[in-house]
């Protein structure tokens, strides 16, 4: 497939962002609980309310709609998320996604445009650094009719209250010390559409949105359990398996859809780079395996006077208990 202007624009934007990172001589953010650094995961949201900026590119083949209204379509998304800690342990975020839809087998023209804008909020409700545990509450609002009409975006808003957790297994007994680098994060939310039905009579179900991420941190193994002599850059790798699922619960919403996403994240000085395969769990989700690349940029190190601390009630001693945000 030739490289289209869309692809070039996306690549140029990504390169510009990365170049900005390179010229900076400081960097890094994110969540710590005890010895555990929880990397920002790719397909599921992490439980930390921190200053973050990420950009991701994913490609996936969508199946033919059950009613035949849309053909099999290749979808490429360039998404960007920005989060800012407003109060200690409370952050607001905004996500935008530029989507390219390519109907397969010449069944229609390619469509480009922005998807609906999404706003989010998150609060770190409970933390236990000794047991590498965190529990957070939050939610998202997908604002209707803010995207491109060419993409057929929802004209109504969707509200998703969510809970998030993270648990590292560094508190396991030494007898099973090689299991200590494992960590599990997860999300559970209820997606509630603002309209229960559409003009054509089709229904919009409530969905349970749930996801898990199981990771094995090589840095944790070498820094806190046993230095087994793995050299860089392999010592900076965090293999991960994520799943991201949607389960309709009413209005004839159909079966659960989602993907299982094995991949790896690499922790560098200025950014995190992650890649995952997107394996559909059933035919309803999609006919083929997709892929996603994500770059996580630690903006609080680029602009330390602006980011890396809450806007209000900044507590310089907040990390004395070795928990939460690292950049105070």
């Amino acid at each position, binding site marked *: *497939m*030739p*490289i*289209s202007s869309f*692809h070039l624009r*996306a*690549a140029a934007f*990504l*390169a510009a962002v*990365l*170049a900005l*990172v*390179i010229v900076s001589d*400081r*960097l*890094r953010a994110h969540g*710590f609980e005890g*010895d555990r650094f929880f990397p920002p995961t790719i397909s599921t949201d992490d439980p930390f309310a921190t200053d973050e900026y990420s950009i991701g*590119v994913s*490609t996936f083949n969508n199946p033919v709609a059950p009613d035949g209204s849309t053909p099999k379509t290749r979808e*490429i998304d360039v998404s960007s998320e920005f989060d800012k800690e407003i109060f200690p342990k409370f952050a607001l975020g905004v996500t935008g996604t530029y989507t390219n839809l390519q109907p397969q087998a010449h069944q229609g023209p390619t469509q480009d445009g922005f998807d609906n804008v999404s706003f989010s909020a998150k609060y770190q409700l409970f933390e236990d650094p000794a047991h590498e545990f965190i529990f957070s509450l939050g939610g998202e609002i997908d604002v209707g009719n803010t995207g491109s009409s060419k993409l057929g975006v929802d004209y109504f808003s969707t509200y998703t209250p969510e809970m998030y957790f993270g648990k590292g297994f560094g508190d396991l007994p*030494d007898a099973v*010390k090689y299991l200590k680098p494992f960590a599990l994060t997860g999300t559970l939310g209820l997606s509630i559409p603002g309209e229960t039905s559409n003009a054509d009579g089709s229904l919009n179900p409530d969905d349970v949105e749930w996801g898990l991420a199981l990771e094995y941190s090589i*840095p944790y193994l*070498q*820094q*806190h*359990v*046993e*230095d087994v002599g793995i050299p*860089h*850059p392999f010592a900076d790798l965090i293999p991960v398996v994520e799943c991201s699922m949607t389960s309709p619960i009413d209005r004839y919403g159909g079966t659960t859809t989602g993907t299982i996403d094995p991949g790896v994240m*690499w*922790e*560098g*000085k*200025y*950014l995190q*780079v992650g*890649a995952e395969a997107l394996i559909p769990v059933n035919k309803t989700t999609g006919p083929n395996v997709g*892929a996603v*690349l994500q*770059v996580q940029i*630690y903006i609080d*190190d680029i602009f*330390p006077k602006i980011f890396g601390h809450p806007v209000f009630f900044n507590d310089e001693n907040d*990390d004395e208990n*070795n928990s939460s945000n*690292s*950049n*105070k």
Partner: protein
Amino acid sequence: MNSMRLLLIVILTVSATSLGRAHAFLDHADPRVGSTVAAPSQVELWMTEDLEPAFTRIQVFDSQGGEVDKKDAKISGATMIVSLPKLGPGTYLVKWKAVATDTHKTTGTFKFTVQ
């Protein structure tokens, strides 16, 4: 997949230039993390970033939670060292707190065993 290949090349090219961390993480230690050794005379940590001596610390504790180091920590560049008395057999816990020169703070622990 041309677009994905192009982006992958861009990302990997950029990433290859960044092999450290702005936060001070443990690069390696002597005694090594999780190792079993003869009684060492000191613990030395090599971090990934230069440290701010005034706010950086290293301590060593025995299995009962008692501090056993000589409380004479020396911080220089990206290393921190603390002396030890003659240690008996057992497992010891090293606790460190690192403040990088750009003020980023990190903490960590690891164990080593004396034969």
